[in-house]
């Protein structure tokens, strides 16, 4: 089933380093467009810092809006890296090989982007340090370590550090390949990054151990990150947020969103960099099967959230859900979320023809993330819009053009960073592809030669 195409080592080097060693016109055009749009978003962010939060749509009682929605969205996307890389590496899934680097890299850039969101949301970015760092020793004022708002940056920076280490460790053999094929300053820089890698048995052994150890150690961090984000909501007493299921619901939702983003990324990469020899229908099929399992688990948790929100028949809880389900525009957002995240893609993924179609998988994976963005929005805003015992003013929330520009800019920022990365490093790991080629074999079963894999 897998590894039906044999590619020589020389061809792997040539094709996967093409964008690194040569200039691709399409890459230049795309990078320029993304860079320009990022510049627009940076200008909007500068305007917001200069003018203050008054230029956003945030007002009483809704003080969490598009920025926090986008923060959760990108933390969710960042869960792709570990899901694809660490879990599939530990379970020795062979089809993971072409997608691990892109998934890990997207994790890093998505986390960086998500970290920017609360900082921008603060309006005066320097104020964020008051919440996180001890700043007033004389008066004994300390950040509250019992607050999830302190756990958040701790978990996310830990995840970011470990993800960067993960990416770097897996890049070392590829640095050496580029070092040996470059001259001048590039040779010096890649030589320094390769840290004397010559591919002897001891180095390969250490590299393998580091990969497995980092995979195992990063898993608890991976689970903790979105759990802690969920506890930003869960440990409060806001109706519809104070829910015990939020932690796994957020984590599984993040995996659904992240893996869908990887599907999108793989299909775009394949088209942009002509990676047809490395990204096949079988890889997208494998990811789609994984998505079916994740989506079903996520749907189970979603229904538990909904059913138990109504469990005690509390007025405030029912009010929030009535708002989400029946009052426009929230009901439209809810319908969009549910249709895009589950109702449309999951039944389609049941068909092998859809799972193996790049066009259909591109559409369905994009739909999932459209839905997941709306999901985060309807979790946050309607819950704050309700009339509470101490809420004397209440109303709706509409994002301003500044917020929309900044949030849209984050998508181009991640795209821009991915393009920049692809210019300096191969997005498909060269050594993993070569290793995969060596583990391919065939076994004769009766009259049929069946593709097989070498296992220890």
């Amino acid at each position, binding site marked *: 089933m897998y590894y039906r195409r044999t590619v020589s080592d020389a061809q792997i080097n040539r094709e996967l380093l093409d964008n690194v060693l040569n200039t691709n016109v399409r890459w230049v055009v795309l990078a320029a467009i993304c860079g320009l749009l990022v510049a627009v978003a940076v200008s909007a962010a500068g305007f917001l810092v200069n003018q203050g939060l008054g230029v956003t749509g945030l007002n009483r009682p809704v003080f969490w809006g598009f920025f926090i929605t986008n923060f959760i969205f990108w933390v969710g996307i960042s869960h792709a890296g570990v899901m694809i890389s660490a879990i599939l590496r530990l379970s020795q899934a062979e089809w993971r090989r072409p997608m691990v680097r892109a998934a890990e890299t997207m994790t890093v850039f998505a986390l960086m982007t998500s970290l920017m969101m609360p900082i921008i949301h603060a309006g005066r970015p320097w104020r964020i340090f008051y919440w996180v760092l001890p700043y007033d020793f004389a008066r004994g004022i300390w950040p509250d370590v019992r607050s999830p708002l302190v756990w958040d940056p701790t978990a996310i920076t830990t995840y970011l550090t470990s993800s960067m280490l993960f990416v770097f460790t897996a890049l070392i053999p590829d640095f050496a390949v580029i070092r040996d094929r470059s001259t001048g300053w590039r040779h010096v820089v890649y030589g320094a990054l390769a840290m004397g890698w010559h591919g002897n048995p001891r180095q390969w052994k250490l590299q393998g151990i580091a990969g497995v150890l980092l995979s195992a150690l990063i898993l608890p961090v991976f689970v903790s990150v979105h759990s802690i984000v969920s506890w930003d909501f869960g440990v409060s007493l806001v109706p519809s947020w104070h829910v015990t299921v*939020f932690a796994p619901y957020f984590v599984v939702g993040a995996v659904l969103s992240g893996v869908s983003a990887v599907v999108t990324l793989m299909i775009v990469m394949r088209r942009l960099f002509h990676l047809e020899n490395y990204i096949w229908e079988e890889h997208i099929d494998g990811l789609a099967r994984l998505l079916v399992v994740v989506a079903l688990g996520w749907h189970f*948790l979603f229904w538990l*959230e909904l059913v*138990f929100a109504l*469990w005690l028949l509390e007025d405030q809880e029912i009010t929030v859900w009535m708002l989400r389900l029946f009052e426009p525009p929230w009901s439209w957002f809810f319908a969009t979320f549910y249709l895009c995240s589950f109702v449309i893609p999951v039944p389609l993924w049941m068909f092998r023809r859809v799972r193996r179609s790049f066009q259909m998988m591109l559409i369905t994976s994009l739909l999932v993330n459209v839905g997941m963005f709306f999901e985060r929005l309807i979790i946050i805003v309607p819950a704050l819009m309700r009339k509470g015992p101490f809420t004397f003013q209440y109303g709706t929330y509409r994002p301003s053009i500044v917020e929309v520009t900044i949030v849209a800019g984050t998508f181009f920022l991640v795209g821009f960073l991915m393009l920049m990365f692809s210019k300096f490093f191969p997005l498909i790991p060269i050594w993993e592809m070569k290793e995969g080629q060596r583990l391919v074999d065939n076994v004769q079963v009766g009259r049929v030669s*069946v593709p097989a894999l070498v*296992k220890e």
Partner: protein
Amino acid sequence: MQGNGHHDSIPQPPSHQEMAQDALAKYQEVGTRYWIWVSIFAGLTLLGMIGLAVRLNDGFDDRAAWGYHVGTMAFILSTFAAMPLIAAGLRLTKAHFRRPFTRIAELGSLSGIVIILMLIPALQVLPALQGRSDIWFDFPLGAPDAWQYIAITTMVLAGLGLAYFAALPDLAAGRDHLPPSWRQQVVSRLSLGWIGNLRAWRIQYMGTLTLGAIYLLSYPLVQTLIVSDFHLGLIPGLKDAIFPATVTLFGLQGGVAMLILLMFIVRQTGGYERYLGVDQFWSMSKPLLAFSLLWFYFWWSSFLTFWYGRMPSEIDVLQMLYLGPYRNVFMLSLFLNFLGPMIALIWNPVRRSIWGPTIVAVGILIGTWVNMMRIYVSAASVPDSEVFGHALVSIPAAVWPAGPDILISIGAISGAALIFLLASKIVPVISIWEIGEGLRLVKIRRFYQRWVRVIAKSH
């Protein structure tokens, strides 16, 4: 590929003909020791029925007296009945190591008969739905009883169908190789004239996948219904959305633990050392470790939300379930289901052994029993006067098991074991055709300096 030096020489596997002859010979044997164990379990099951008769004689008015009965039913659901999930899941993911133990796992579905029988009196002790929190929201047409039966029967039938479909080729082998006897006649009827043509294999393949998928989907539903009606709905003020998922996870952990224990028993007593080797125990110890870590994660997600919420109803619930009368019971379960397995299974030499995972599995099964009793006995002990309120007025005292409770628990578990034991002589306890298929797909080849296994991907 990174080497660890363990497979410098891999013994050549037997041919599938040799394996089939060996396994069929073991299947044909019905020794004295087998009948002794059947007698013991039958005796214990009888004692359980006496315990149940005592409880039935006392009537259904005292719900607290039925807590252990419900807890035992949940224990069987979370151990024996969870095993087919593992078989179905591993078959869907085409895990090669599953082959020798899928039959053991699938036979766990037979315990569904015990669960249905225990559900009948258990449903009689539930209070009326009107005026209390429940999952049914005035749902018509016989809620909760009818829907409980429908859900559980669907799950049990899917499990039995899965076990039967997966056993068809082996039943045909039994038909052709057993000496003429009543057993051979039964096996012959059950084999439905299987001759193993291409069409039959295709139907069998699709059937096992479909029934496995139905079992995978219906199991969380059944756990949700049981825990909603017999735990969450009986404790006023308790709103714990994660708990149905938590008990499903408890089931997965208990299912893996029960499977490892049964693999060990079958290996030691049936002479199946060649088939149930270190590979199988090693492979299953990894999900066991993962489920043990998730056990804590799911519990913690729930506990932390209540702890921070600090509403009076939440403090009462924490007192009742974790910090009050059942504190020691909870601590024991926390150690046996999370701390102990984590400390032991984090080490590869422990995981890569026969005894290591088995000892941990026994601890987990004890922990699961204790945990199920805590969950369901505590809920059953809330009096009717409080069940219809919005919060607990007082924390009920712990209910410890009486004689009939102990008899019911031992009897029900023995009943599930007895059915397993009897079925293991109707169908071979290891899946001969699956092992044979696996042997055809594996070759030992030279790979650079060493010998390795090359595994072909089936289907």
